[in-house]
């Protein structure tokens, strides 16, 4: 098993940062924990009940908390829940004279890291403490690295976008200046070509924006902002925004859903983005005067959103590729439709980051239906 005593070097490293709080109503227990752990170089604080324990946690911000399950007043279980509320990164170790499988499971459900049944030897206490603190160190380190990575990525994105967008913006500006006659008269043939060229630039700018969206939607980023959100306003706002686009092809947008749908767990902004991409596909690949119907139904654990269009449909072969990045169907009918080919992949990533699923069914010449499954928000009170 190895040496249970920390080497003086390790002690130095850990004790520089580690503060341990012992919450137990028994004086003898508090004293003996104090004796044992102080020898290993940690800073030890004690509290004799739940309330004073919580106060101390807010004050001294310990790395690890030893919690007795059976105390008068606030129970250890209740205390564990409150610790998580104050700081989910504090390591909790439960100590108890009534060790049962049930209580162990209950404690773990409340994010306890470890379980130490009384009576325990000093060595056992040391091992559990050391393990808990190591876990704490790793958790803090990974949080720091994640933040660093995020900052680097943000800087990268800003730099790349500047390098790519800036020259394109200049080209567009030039075209604008020429077309408006600031540097001389423009013949109609020249005007036409310059306008065409401008369209290429627009497409490229759109592609860059879409690509940057893709790189931003890595699961870790958006899940942090998750909360219970209602689908109804998200969908109705999306359709409202796309109304002008629909009108250019005389397409009708329809929304069918109950007023009292339960909430789903997610991030409003990215969901809006996903549905905007999906519904605009339904519009762009549709016929003149067609319809796009968005409906929501409730299932046991999820809400299912269906987006159906009366468009040109997708061939069986192409269906395999529609979620691939930069893929767009190339056919007689789609020649006029522009896009980066990233609309569907972006939507898919967003849906999957929401622990959802997206499925597509289509018949060439008839239309396409997308089914999006999104888990309902937990009943657990947040």
């Amino acid at each position, binding site marked *: 098993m190895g040496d249970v005593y920390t080497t003086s070097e390790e002690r130095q490293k850990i004790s520089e940062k580690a503060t341990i709080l012992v919450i137990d109503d028994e004086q003898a227990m508090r004293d003996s924990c104090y004796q044992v752990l102080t020898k290993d170089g940690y800073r030890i604080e004690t509290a004799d009940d739940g309330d004073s324990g919580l106060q101390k946690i807010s004050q001294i911000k310990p790395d690890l908390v030893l919690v007795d399950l059976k105390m008068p007043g606030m129970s250890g279980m209740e205390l564990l829940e409150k610790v998580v509320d104050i700081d989910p990164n504090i390591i909790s170790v439960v100590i108890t004279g009534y060790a049962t499988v049930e209580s162990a499971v209950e404690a773990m459900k409340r994010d306890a890291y470890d379980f130490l049944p009384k009576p325990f030897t000093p060595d056992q206490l040391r091992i559990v403490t050391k393990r808990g603190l190591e876990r704490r160190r790793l958790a803090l380190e990974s949080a720091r690295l994640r933040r660093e990575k995020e900052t680097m990525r943000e800087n990268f994105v800003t730099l790349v976008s500047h390098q790519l967008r800036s020259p394109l913006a200049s080209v567009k*500006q030039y075209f604008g200046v020429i077309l408006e006659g600031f540097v001389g008269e423009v013949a109609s043939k020249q005007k036409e070509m310059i306008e065409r060229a401008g369209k290429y630039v627009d497409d490229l700018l759109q592609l860059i924006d879409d690509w940057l969206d893709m790189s931003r939607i890595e699961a870790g980023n958006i899940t942090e902002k998750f909360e219970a959100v209602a689908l109804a306003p998200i969908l109705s706002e999306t359709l409202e925004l796309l109304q002008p686009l629909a009108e250019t092809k005389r397409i009708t947008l329809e929304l069918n859903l109950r007023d009292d749908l339960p909430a789903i767990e997610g991030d409003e902004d990215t969901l809006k983005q996903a549905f905007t991409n999906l519904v605009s596909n339904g519009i762009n690949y549709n016929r003149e005067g067609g319809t796009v119907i968005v409906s929501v139904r409730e299932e046991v654990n999820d809400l299912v959103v269906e987006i159906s269009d009366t468009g040109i449909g997708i061939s069986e072969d192409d269906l395999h590729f529609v979620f691939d990045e930069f893929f767009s169907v190339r056919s007689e009918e789609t020649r006029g439709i522009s896009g980066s080919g990233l609309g569907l992949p972006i939507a898919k990533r967003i849906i999957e980051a929401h622990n959802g699923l997206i499925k597509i069914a289509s018949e060439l010449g008839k239309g396409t239906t997308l089914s999006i499954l999104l888990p309902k928000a937990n009943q657990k009170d947040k």
Partner: protein
Amino acid sequence: MTNKAKILLIDDDLGYVKSITAILESKEYIVETAYDRKSAIEKIEKIKPDLILLDIMMDRLDDGFTLCYRLKHDSELKKIPILTISAVTEKTGFKFSPATDGEYFEADDHMEKPVKTSDLLERIEKLLKKVIK
């Protein structure tokens, strides 16, 4: 009245400067240019422009910010209206705007590249009118 106004255009992109100059000169503004932060400061002190068009990212990520801050915290120079223009947008990482970051970004107005000619000229006129008042 505002036609003879002196506008200083600060941007490291030569091509962009040329296109904006064409727009401004069509309205008979007097256009001066500077291509980096240091020469910009020198020019400002020398010619005392009536309005400044300022790019955000030049040699360094925050050149525009730093310059804007410096100008707005100078008792004399803070009177010059600043219209910032940038190719970096909110979507691509630029999270600041005078509307939401007041104390950190005190530009009088902000536009994204490429700008609509009429829009640019309108906003410049508005800012110049404000000063005269």
